[in-house]
């Protein structure tokens, strides 16, 4: 281990390591890259899940803000609507969700039903059936293909594998693109070709790296019980195998079998209809204990000792997910216990969960995180395109004129269809939401059909024309679609820009404006693709520049 011999040996070993990591980075990225792109894009949209839910139910436009009596009034309205209610979970309105949403079940079939109520009158609100923003949210973690939810467990496993590969690709990417710190601020779009794509991939990868690491790792951790059940199996033995319920009860700060107003499977056949509960004193006590913190929801369920009421704090009030709960005796109104577990493992899990969902984020922070999601999608997309561009450059170095080989043709086509087609599919589901008849049976599934059909159509276009013209056709159509969305909205609903802008309803106007801006961006991109298509052969004929060009030579170029 003398000083003179160690350095060269070490550098060879380092080079070998980098090569190995490079292989791992390329293939872990490529194999599920299209899926990762779809997960990243739909997950990014989920930051605005509530806003999509609202926009896709234009009947809810114009609801006033709630006042302090909203919970009591909603309970009365629910009891008038369903006198036999045995359990209900009520989400109180906030600026992002103006209606009261109630999940309830009665003595009938024991299934939960959803009810939306006016925040001030308590009147039952009728809105169109829609997949809503929930679809993007569900798709991003279980690849949902039907509104009722099928193959959700399989979907979660596939997403889990993809997420693990994403994590591998992120870590190996830091090793592979060894110049990311030297080229930290370097983006040279005018250089074109492989150089520009590599810059785009490196810059979009490194600048928001903390966000990508956080979102990927926390995404894996959220479903730890599915992916890594062994620890729970060992720690929570039950009469029949594993008592998973005991584990989750403890995770939420409870003991198994406690009186609870939580949502349980199946329902209780002997459940009695609930009496009217005096919610006001409990809400007052909650406000006192949480020192003015917002109330997120109220759950009420029967138990052998009488009804139990749980008041949950708003989940936007802190970083850690799993907001504190206060449990009251429904008949006497006395506080039974306060549930707010703070053990190290529970807190770590809650903070990771909270970071992933970003319920804590205000509008500015939410938009920034959305921007990081877009940047991450671009990182994946540029990595996929880079694979093609690099291969093309390598094969052209070997043979001057060569047709696109099958694998490159396939990857190029899949890039267009699966990545370029996704904005088109998103536009399609938004069009379906406005154009399908409001009374259509299984309307959410019809919306999903539009989504997947548009995606499939784009895939066909991509496989048939795996060139710039294919990209331009798919992205251009999506761009026009998004640009025209506010117009369609104005033609079919009363919740359009002409109404929402003068009234400063930014949740509504923000959606329409964002669609237009996104449409303009896509059209700009399409124009760019069409204009740049002419000098392409000349560029390709140029000898490929080495990626390891020194800064001085690139300066001269």
């Amino acid at each position: 281990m003398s000083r003179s011999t160690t350095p060269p040996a070490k550098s060879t070993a380092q080079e070998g390591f980098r090569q190995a990591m490079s292989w791992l980075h390329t293939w872990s990225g490529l194999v599920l890259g299209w899926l990762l792109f779809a997960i990243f894009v739909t997950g990014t949209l989920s930051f605005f899940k509530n806003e999509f839910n609202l926009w896709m139910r234009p009947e809810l436009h114009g609801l006033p803000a709630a006042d302090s009596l909203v919970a009591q009034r909603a309970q009365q309205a629910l009891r008038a609507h369903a006198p036999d209610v045995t359990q209900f979970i009520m989400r109180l309105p906030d600026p992002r969700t103006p209606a009261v949403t109630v999940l309830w079940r009665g003595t009938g079939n024991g299934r939960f039903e959803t009810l939306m109520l006016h925040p001030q009158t308590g009147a039952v609100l009728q809105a169109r059936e829609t997949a809503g923003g929930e679809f993007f949210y569900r798709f991003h973690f279980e690849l949902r293909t039907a509104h009722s939810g099928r193959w959700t467990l399989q979907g979660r496993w596939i997403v889990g594998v993809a997420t693990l590969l994403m994590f591998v690709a992120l870590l190996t990417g830091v090793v592979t693109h060894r110049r990311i710190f030297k080229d930290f601020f370097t983006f040279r779009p005018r250089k074109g070709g492989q150089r520009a794509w590599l810059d785009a991939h490196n810059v979009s990868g490194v600048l928001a790296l903390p966000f990508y690491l956080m979102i990927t790792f926390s995404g894996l951790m959220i479903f730890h019980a599915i992916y890594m059940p062994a620890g729970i199996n060992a720690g929570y033995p039950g009469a029949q195998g594993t008592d998973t319920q005991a584990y989750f009860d403890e995770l939420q700060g409870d003991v198994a079998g406690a009186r609870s107003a939580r949502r349980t499977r199946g329902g209780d056949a002997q459940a009695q209809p609930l009496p009217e509960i005096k919610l006001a004193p409990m809400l007052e006590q909650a406000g006192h204990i949480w020192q003015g913190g917002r109330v997120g929801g109220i759950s009420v369920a029967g138990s052998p000792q009488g009804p139990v009421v749980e008041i949950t704090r708003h989940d936007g009030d802190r970083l850690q997910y799993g907001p504190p709960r206060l449990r009251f005796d429904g008949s006497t109104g006395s506080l039974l216990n306060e549930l707010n577990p703070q053990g190290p493992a529970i807190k770590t899990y809650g903070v990771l969960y909270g970071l992933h969902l970003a319920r804590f984020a205000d509008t500015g922070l939410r938009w920034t995180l959305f921007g990081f999601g877009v940047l991450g999608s671009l990182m994946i997309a540029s990595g996929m395109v880079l694979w093609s561009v690099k291969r093309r450059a390598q094969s052209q170095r070997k043979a001057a004129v060569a047709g696109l080989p099958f694998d490159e043709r396939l990857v190029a086509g899949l890039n267009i269809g699966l990545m370029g087609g996704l904005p088109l599919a998103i536009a399609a589901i938004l069009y379906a939401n406005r154009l399908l008849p409001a009374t259509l049976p299984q309307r959410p599934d019809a919306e999903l059909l539009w989504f997947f059909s548009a995606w499939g159509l784009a895939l066909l276009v991509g496989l048939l024309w795996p060139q710039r013209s294919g990209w331009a056709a798919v992205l251009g159509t999506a761009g026009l679609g998004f640009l025209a969305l506010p117009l369609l909205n104005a033609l079919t609903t009363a919740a359009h820009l002409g109404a929402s802008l003068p009234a400063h309803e930014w949740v509504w106007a923000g959606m329409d404006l964002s669609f237009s801006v996104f449409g303009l961006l896509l059209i700009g991109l399409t124009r760019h693709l069409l204009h740049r298509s002419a000098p392409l052969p000349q560029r390709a004929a140029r000898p490929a520049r080495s990626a390891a060009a020194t800064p001085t030579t690139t300066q001269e170029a």
Partner: protein
Amino acid sequence: MLTDFLLCFAAWSALALAMDRHYEEAWPGSDTEAAPIARRRQQLALTGCLLLTLSLSLALTLPTHSSRALAAVVWVVALSLSAVAATAASTWMPQQQPLLGLGALAAGAISLLLRALA
């Protein structure tokens, strides 16, 4: 968020200018390996690191958010966002980057002062 962003942007600008490529783009024709400029670049790198440390400690000691944990998260978000902004400045307006960095530093100091007075 704004103070974090401004101070981090100033820090990233200093760190970018400490690199020979961006230094030469900001001040075209300068010999980045010459002793006085190499020293200046070293000072810029040091300033950048100090500013990053300073902005983090300010974010944690003068929290504007409900908890210190949230303040740290907001700082990391501002760190990434300002890095994107500094890269954009390096790409599209390299000659204005020194001025933008100084401007952000001044604006950050003013916003700190306003917070102290309020």
